[in-house]
C-alpha cells in the first residue's frame, strides 16, 4: 500500500495437532483453525467438537494440570498459556505430560 504502514497480522490459520487421547474427543487428524491466541483456537475447537469441552480446560477456563500446549514447538503451558499470541504461528501441539503411577 503506497505510503501506508503494513499491518501486522493478529491471527493465524494454523495446524492443530492433538495427541491420540484427545483425538477420542476431537478431530481424528490435524485440524486447520484460525485464531489470535491459544484460547481463541481452543474456543473454535470446542465449538466444532463439543466433547473436547472441559477436557483441555476446566470449567473455570484454565488449562488442566497435565495438558501441555506447544506453539511452534515451544511449551507455553506454564508461561503465556491461553493468552499466547499466534500472529506468526504455524502449528499448535496439544499433548499430555507423563504422569501417574
Amino acid at each position: 500500500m503506497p505510503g501506508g504502514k503494513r499491518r501486522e497480522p493478529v491471527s493465524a490459520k494454523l495446524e492443530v495437532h492433538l495427541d491420540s487421547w484427545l483425538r477420542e474427543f476431537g478431530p481424528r487428524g490435524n485440524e486447520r483453525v484460525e485464531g489470535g491466541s491459544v484460547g481463541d483456537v481452543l474456543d473454535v475447537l470446542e465449538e466444532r467438537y463439543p466433547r473436547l469441552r472441559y477436557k483441555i480446560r476446566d470449567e473455570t477456563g484454565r488449562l488442566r494440570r497435565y495438558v501441555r500446549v506447544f506453539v511452534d514447538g515451544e511449551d507455553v503451558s506454564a508461561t503465556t498459556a491461553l493468552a499466547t499470541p499466534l500472529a506468526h504461528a504455524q502449528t499448535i501441539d496439544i499433548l499430555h505430560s507423563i504422569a501417574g503411577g
Partner: protein
Amino acid sequence: MAKDRKLRVLLGTRKGTYIVEGDRRRAHWKVGPAAHEGSEVYHVVADPRHPGDVYAAVNNSFWGPQVQRSRNWGRTWQEVATPLTARTKDRQPQFNDSDPTTPVPRPLNNLWHIEPGLPSDPDTLYLGADPHLLFRTHDRGRSWEPIDSINNHPRKKDWAPGAGGACLHTILLDPREPNRLYIGLSAVGTFRSEDAGATWTPTNKGVEAPFLPDKFPETGQCVHDVAADAANPDTFYRQDHGGMYVSHDRMAKWVRIGKPLGDDFGFTVASPRSAPGRAYFVRLNGMARVTGEGHFQVHEWNDRTRRWRKLLSPNAFPGHFGVQREGITTDDLDPPGIYVGTTTGQLFISPDAGKTWSLVPFSFPGIHSVSVANPG
C-alpha cells in the same frame, strides 16, 4: 421380564470400575472386565429403581471428573452431563489455600458419591463432590442443579479440606420423609435438611474434634462415613476422625461408642437392612491407617445390647489392610452379606453376617468403593 437373579458387587478402584457377579448363595464370583481403565473411580452405584442402570463417579487426572452411566449392568458406559459447569459462574469463588485473602475460582475437583433418590422420585439422584459441593438431578443425570445452600454456604470460606480433599462424601435420604436429607463433609461435619436442601442444620453435637482447639465445635469435625439404620431411620452410625458414634435422634446428638475398642479410628461403616440395630466398622490404626491388629478384622456393634463383637479370628487373614470411606457395604439378603474392599485390592465377602469369610480370588487395583446391586 424375568427377574434378574444375579447379585452384583460394584467396585470403584484406583484404576477403573469392576463388576463382580454372583448370586444369592454368595459363594462363587465372576469378575467382569474393567471399565474406565486408568481413571480413579471413587464410587459406583446401581439405581435400584431402574434395574441395569449403574452410575460411576469417574475422576481422570487428565480429563477431570465425569459422571458415567451404564444402562446394561456395566457392559457399556457413556458420559452423562457432568455438573461442572453452566452455573459455575454463579458460585462464590473459592479461596486459594496458599493465599486466603485472594479469591480465585476453583474448579470441580473429584466426584465422590452418587446417591439415587427415593422410589417416589424415580429420576432424582444426588451427587457429592469436591470442593464441598452438592448437586441434584431430576432427569437421571441429563442436567444437574447445584444446591446453593451448601455450594454457597455463608461459612464456606472457613471450611478447610481434609487429607482426601474438600469432599462431600455422604448423602442419606429419609425413606419416610422426602424433604429430609443428611450430608457429610470432610473436615466440616454432618448437616440435616428438613426442606429438601433449602436450609441446613449442623448436626455434630457430641462429636469430638481432637485436632481443633475447641474440642466440641458446632462444625469442623472430620466425618468419614455415616450409615443409617434401615429399621429405624432416626438412628445413625458414624465413623468420624474422632471415633465411632451413634445417634438415635436424627443426629441431634451423638454418643461415642468406640471407646471400649481403644483406638476407634476408621473410615467406613455399614448397617444392613436385614439386621436392624447392627453396624459394621473396620477399625484402623489412627496413625498407620491400616488394620492395627495385624490381621483383617470387622467389628460389629449391636445397638440393642450396646456391645461389640469381633467377626474374624486373628488367624483368618493376617496382614495390614487399609479400608477407605466407601470400602464396606452390606446386601439386603437375610442373613446379610458383608463386603469389604481394601486399598491393596482384596475383596472380602461374608455371606452370613460375618460368621464365615472368603476372599474373591482376584487382585483388584486399590479399592475406593464397594456397593451391591441386590438380586431382583
